[in-house]
């Protein structure tokens, strides 16, 4: 199925967020995730369903003022 990851279209096969993150190569990276605009904590990634057309945001630490 096709989803959007940080505004880029990606084809994935996993149907939960934790599987999709592994598939996309994030593995153990220190990132935070939001699905369709809502924050999904690490503790809920294994049960959060990813469906066709989902919008996934993956954010990492960055310099800031």
């Amino acid at each position, binding site marked *: 199925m096709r989803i959007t990851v*940080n*505004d880029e279209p990606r084809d994935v096969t996993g149907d939960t967020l934790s599987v999709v993150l592994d598939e*996309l*190569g*994030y593995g153990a*990276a*220190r*990132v*935070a*995730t*939001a699905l369709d*605009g*809502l*924050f999904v*904590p*690490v503790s809920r990634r294994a049960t959060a369903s990813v469906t066709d057309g989902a919008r996934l*945001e*993956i*954010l*990492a*630490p*960055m*310099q*800031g*003022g």
Partner: protein
Amino acid sequence: MTFYGTELSSRLMLGTAQYPSPDILAGAVRAAQAGVVTVSLRRESAGERAGQAFWSLISDLGVPVLPNTAGCHTPREAVTTAQMAREVFNTDWIKLEVIGEQDTLQPDVFGLVEAARILTEDGFKVFPYTTEDLVVAERLLRAGCEVLMPWGAPIGSGKGLNNVFGLRAMRAHFPDVPLVVDAGIGRPSHATQAMELGYDAVLINTAVAQAGDPVGMARAFRLAVESGLAAREADPMDERDMAAPSTPVLGLARFA
């Protein structure tokens, strides 16, 4: 100096953006003896790993981090960003920015108060980037904020304290609330002025990061903050309109 019950080692808070290199950033944080560093969150592709390298640099510095919600224009965006930041940076502190106007990056104070209320109810310790408006300040306190961070001037402008009267009024109005001048400070003298006005801390980024020698400027800001605080504690003299001779007139020689 305590924020939400946490004692800070210094009243200089330093942003981590726009430095020429990670080494210079680390050098500046050390030279500033910063009590807090601000950080942010951005999109990262899996192969990039820039965020992971940045996180390891920040962790090594051992300074408390204050994540921001920079770039958010609505309470909803700011709340989601704050939730993500809490998990990534493992802190319930959040520098809340809800931007309302693109040219000045002025806070949308209505969205700010709403987001502050939602985040406080969710257990966050909110550091709101606000204006010097006393009514907004009162609303933020009522929403649960225990620190206020009024702007000195627009972010990155380096113009210093644009509204000294307003900042002084804010200090007088909220004598027991920790107040931080955030944004607009361009030179160490501006930081000294903020401390002399009785502000508890200053937050600097561009003025250090974009200086010709960021590490040297970080040191200059450390000294400036220390100087302003010492001056404040030493109770500065009152201004007057007329001259008053500092050398005693009594016993002056007469030659004519």
